[in-house]
């Protein structure tokens, strides 16, 4: 993608209506992100239903701006309350809140805002450069590779979202794959697991499943806690000096790269990116002892990575129709709803779409920076709304969002049931992200597996002999083996021998 294409798309977006949509949606995203209990996924899923009647380009402006705003917004509550607004900002708590307790809340917010802006810009540059490249590789994918890719996505997502017990992550992924099989099968249109119920013929809708698993589950979890939160920090100077940021340019660059790579891995998402970037920054830092006690470097690493991850997560959405994170999964569903078909053929069918998405990112980054720096004190007021007032309103919005897509009460009931399922999954340490990823990749895995088997007359060897499949299997195997106690013990003993 040339720079001129990007800028011509950007200037084409410069209409009052689009700018207005970008600003209100970013503001909405920041508020959703900063309120503990409301996640970026939930915000994007909610607006997917509500922008159903929008023109596709305007709907994308609203959804991408919400996504960018929400991932940034979570840093506010992480800094001021020591409660991450979204899971993506959990690493921000470690240094953001100690800074606030030292009386540097405004400075920490400013640092988080500029780091998030730089991270998003880094992500959009990578989106512009790598999407066409990955798209060219994706054109070589056949049914075999698409099937192996979906297995790879589930395994790596389960591994990274349940780092202490990956078995539960993998089980959640298989549950998602199985649930996606409900409804008519994609090859012969034979109903599966529908029990004669007409509402199930088209399968379980993605938006109610997402809103339920992420939104309703979180509402129950938040309301269950007997103690509410309150803001005690005082916010003063907000804009950090440029010299402070330049001093950490290596950390910014490294965290940006980590964010984009983690984002591009199917289903893994911003929370993992920020933890890995934080941990890496600590390892490379000249002052690792400051981490966890209000380190500027730690805060910059976490916030740069989680926002760079947004751009990274969109790359596989556009080129492979595989989401890089949970909010990106909703974005993918929204694109389908609006008649956009992401995947290897996107650059052929809609050659300017990748440039349009990149330009929307640029616009939402500007909106995020302006709103983030200008509305510090009013946004802090939002955190003072009691959850007993906020949560029922959010639940009412979840119902509207689930109903709006198909106009069926069945979807609202489905959302509620998935909310309860999501809640029990949390209580039992099963991550929701692999389940949602499995739910999205399930039709692709089923369709491509059977199609490949039909093409080869039941021969499974091409799954293991085609070059791209071999690469994906090797990566999957490496991920699984990395969790094996035997392999970890062997690697540790190897490292000990080398150090001697």
């Amino acid at each position, binding site marked *: 993608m040339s720079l001129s294409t990007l800028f011509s798309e950007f200037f084409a977006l410069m209409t009052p209506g689009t700018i207005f949509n970008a600003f209100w949606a970013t503001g909405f995203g920041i508020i959703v992100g900063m309120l503990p209990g409301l996640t970026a996924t939930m915000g994007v899923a909610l607006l997917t239903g509500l922008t159903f009647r929008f023109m596709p380009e305007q709907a994308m402006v609203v959804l991408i701006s919400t996504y960018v705003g929400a991932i940034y917004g979570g840093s506010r509550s992480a800094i001021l309350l020591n409660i991450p607004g979204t899971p993506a900002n959990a690493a921000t708590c470690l240094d953001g809140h100690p800074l606030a307790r030292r009386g540097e809340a405004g400075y920490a917010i400013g640092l988080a805002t500029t780091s998030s802006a730089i991270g998003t810009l880094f992500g959009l540059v990578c989106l512009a450069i790598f999407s066409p490249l990955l798209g060219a590789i994706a054109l070589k994918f056949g049914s075999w590779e698409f099937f192996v890719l979906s297995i790879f996505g589930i395994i790596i997502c389960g591994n990274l979202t349940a780092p202490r017990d990956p078995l539960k992550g993998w089980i959640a992924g298989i549950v998602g794959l199985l649930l996606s099989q409900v409804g008519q099968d994609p090859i012969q249109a034979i109903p599966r697991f529908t029990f004669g119920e007409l509402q199930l013929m088209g399968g379980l809708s993605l938006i109610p499943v997402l809103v339920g698993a992420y939104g309703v589950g979180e509402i129950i979890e938040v309301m269950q806690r007997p103690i509410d*939160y309150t803001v005690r920090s005082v916010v003063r100077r907000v804009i950090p000096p440029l010299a402070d940021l330049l001093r950490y340019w290596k950390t910014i660059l490294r965290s940006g790269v980590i964010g984009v790579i983690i984002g591009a891995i199917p289903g893994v998402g911003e*929370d993992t990116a920020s933890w890995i970037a934080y941990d890496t920054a600590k390892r490379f830092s000249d002052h690792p002892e400051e981490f966890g006690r209000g380190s500027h470097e730690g805060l910059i690493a976490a916030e740069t990575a989680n926002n760079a991850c947004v751009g990274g997560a969109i790359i596989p959405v556009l080129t492979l129709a595989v989401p890089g994170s949970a909010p990106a999964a909703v974005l993918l569903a929204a694109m389908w709803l609006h008649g956009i078909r992401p995947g290897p053929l996107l650059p052929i069918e809609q050659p300017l779409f990748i440039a349009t998405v990149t330009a929307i990112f640029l616009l939402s980054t500007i909106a995020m920076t302006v709103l983030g720096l200008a509305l510090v004190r009013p946004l802090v007021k939002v955190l003072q709304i009691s959850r007993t*007032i906020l949560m029922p309103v959010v639940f009412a919005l979840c119902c509207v969002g689930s109903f709006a897509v198909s106009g069926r009460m069945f979807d*609202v009931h489905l959302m509620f049931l998935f909310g309860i399922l999501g809640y029990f999954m949390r209580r039992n340490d099963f991550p929701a992200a692999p389940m949602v990823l499995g739910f999205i990749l399930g039709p692709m895995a089923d369709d491509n597996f059977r199609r490949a088997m039909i093409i080869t007359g*039941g021969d499974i060897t091409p799954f293991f002999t085609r070059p791209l499949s071999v690469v994906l299997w090797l990566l999957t195997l490496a991920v699984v083996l990395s969790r094996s106690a035997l392999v970890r013990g062997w690697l540790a003993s190897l490292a000990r021998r080398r150090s001697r």
Partner: protein
Amino acid sequence: MRKKDFWSGLVLVLSALAFLAASLRLPWRDTGYDWFGSPGFVPAILAGFLSLGGIRLMLRSRAGGAFYDSLAATPDPCACDAPEDAAESAGEREPAVPAWMRSEPLRGALTVALCGAYVFLLMGRLPYIPATFLFLAGFILVFRGAGLPRSGVIGAAASVSIWFVFYKIFAVFLP
């Protein structure tokens, strides 16, 4: 967690067996393709893997004492609330809440019950604004978010605002 894992594993195995049985009842012949083109093929494989996962979870919960010890010793990398920080930042915003409402399971059950009542009893049976008003005002009142008059005002304002913004401005269908 050991006990929870055992029961989770059992539920998973039973669900997987139900899926497997339903997959085997789908057409495996006369589909125009061979058996590998059957709509039950992929779900049957997935159900097989799910049951294996469930069995592994059950076996681990029975025999994996060392695993659970190491799990308890490993800090959760996705948690950031240091206890002293949480105490510092979290203040009691609801002093009027009675003691019985400090029970976590009760609060969870109450939330599910109120949301369930809205979804299954109010929505679709009453017009949108009254149904949402009753839910919001009731929820705020039950959880002592505000007194009766204030709960009513918030419920009315929020339900009318949602209706106006989404139905009138965004032209979204409401239940």
